[in-house]
């Protein structure tokens, strides 16, 4: 196949060379230009990775990892932020995973074509809603009535962002499960729900987990929905969901705006930690799914 295509390509080029020099020239120039465009797309990635790594590693030290934040350029670290992210993101996942996976099961296994389309559409629109508006939405019913910024509201906001993503990936993966598996299980007299859970979802589990991991990585980097919910805090907050809590993205945002060198460095350090987590998840997940695709 590939060899044939190359051969066809070659002979086509030869024919064109005779047909008209200008057209061949335009063809070649535009193909090079498209290559240049692709390289331009990669430059920002390289630049961000380079600066976050260089300035971030310089700022990562024991203090950053083990000390809570302190005011106005006098030391301290990102401990409160690290612990906050480690609490709010898993809690959000705990809420979003059942909703996302079950909703994905519904639109693929149970819902009529029309209801599936409506729900899918709603989920796509929800994914497109600016995350800061989700922050305001959660603020109006989990912060405002209690007059208290709280970590629980932050988790809910993150869960709202995660669940449509998980739902859509679950649906995509369920589509790949062959119908014969379902039929075989049903023919053996296994009830529909057991068939769905132990056969269909079981088969699709690696893909569903992939979707969940990507959603977690995305939630871990979200700042805007936490601004008016979890708010951020200098104090280490472990376990008190009714009080404000810090998170790594909030820590980066706040410290980048400080006029103190040390604070800015801490922001780079935190950005490095966050980026290492987010990119590790993304690289692992994508390498694995690329691996299974070629097998």
């Amino acid at each position: 196949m590939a060899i044939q295509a190359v051969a066809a390509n070659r002979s086509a080029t030869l024919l064109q060379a005779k047909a008209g020099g200008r057209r061949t020239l335009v063809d070649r120039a535009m193909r090079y230009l498209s290559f240049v465009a692709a390289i331009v797309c990669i430059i920002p990635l390289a630049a961000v990775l380079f600066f976050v790594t260089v300035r971030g590693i310089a700022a990562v030290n024991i203090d950053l990892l083990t000390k809570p934040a302190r005011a106005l350029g006098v030391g301290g670290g990102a401990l409160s932020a690290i612990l906050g992210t480690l609490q709010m993101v898993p809690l959000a996942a705990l809420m979003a995973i059942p909703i996302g996976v079950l909703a994905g099961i519904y639109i693929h296994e149970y819902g009529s074509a029309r209801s599936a389309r409506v729900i899918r559409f709603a989920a796509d629109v929800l994914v497109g809603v600016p995350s800061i508006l989700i922050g305001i939405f959660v603020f109006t019913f989990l912060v405002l009535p209690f007059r208290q910024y709280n970590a629980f509201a932050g988790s809910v906001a993150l869960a709202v962002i995660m669940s449509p993503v998980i739902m859509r990936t679950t649906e995509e993966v369920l589509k790949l499960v062959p119908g014969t598996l379902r039929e075989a299980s049903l023919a053996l007299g296994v009830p529909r729900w057991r068939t769905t859970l132990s056969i269909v979802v079981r088969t699709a589990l690696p893909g569903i987990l992939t979707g969940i991991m990507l959603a977690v990585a995305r939630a871990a980097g979200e700042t805007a929905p936490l601004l008016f919910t979890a708010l951020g805090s200098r104090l280490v907050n472990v376990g008190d969901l009714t009080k404000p809590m810090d998170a790594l993205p909030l820590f980066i945002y706040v410290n980048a705006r400080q006029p103190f060198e040390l604070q800015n460095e801490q922001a780079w350090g935190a950005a490095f930690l966050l980026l290492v987590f987010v990119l590790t998840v993304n690289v692992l997940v994508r390498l694995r799914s690329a691996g299974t695709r070629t097998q």
Partner: protein
Amino acid sequence: MTTLPSAPWLAARPVGRTSDRAFRWATRLAALAVVAVLVLLAIQLLDSSLLTWQTFGLGFIGGTTWDPVQAVYGALPYIVGTLLSSLIALVLATPIGLLTAIFLSEVASPRVATPLIFMIELLAAIPSVVFGLWGVFVLAPFLRGTVEAWISSTLGFIPFLGGPTFGIGLFTAGVILAIMILPTIVSIAREVIRSVPGSQREAMLALGATRWEVITKAVLPYARSGIVGAVILGLGRALGETMAVTMVIGNGQAIPTHLFDQAQTIASKIATTFNEATIGIQTSSLIALGLILLVITIGLNVVARLLVWRVAGPTGGE
């Protein structure tokens, strides 16, 4: 009244049926929850901003002052800031993104395309706040010394392009947004281009067209509405992007008149002032800003999805 026969093999059935029904309802509730969140979000934003709409009416949209002391609020500077920054992003990202999508799907061999696609997907995974940090400390000083200085000195005679350069401002925000929407435009445009039937290309090649002519005369016209959809989805993302923009756009309160002015977008205005706002007309007005943003982004998303669906089918895109 006849009693139903009770046979053990029949008795076993309803048990399964009950749990079947329970499971089905659980999945249905979860799916409805996703829809309900969207509906509630719209209702809640409308309800919480009612005070502003009652006080200023639709004049709020055209109002140019935002003055908490006098309790006069208008959305226009932020709407203009949002549209202008996104416009800059589109002008930069559309040609580059489209050319990249063409390169990845029509020009490059899989061996070259696969790693590039991988890297562009990674670009999409970088958190907004990290872009913001990089924007403030690296990109803004860089642009100020190079691109902005050049535009200001050579093209400055054109009204919108002149003026002093700060690094922090509308232009830098547009550049950051362009970087952030590139992956969206590339991946969806690629999806759409890939769904163009091979026979279209072969027919053009058979007529003696060059590869580039195949792309411009056969592939792109076929994929046009889907590509427009990809660009609109990118625009939707740019309009609502918050953190990176907030960090690099400055804090201008007036309607920007120059490319390098400091400005505010709707999202950045909300992000910077919502926590300090007093409950009442001020928060109400900020939420009203949010509602305007919601209406714009939902509208764009609906239009874009329909356009992408027309070419690539309902599962395409994302």
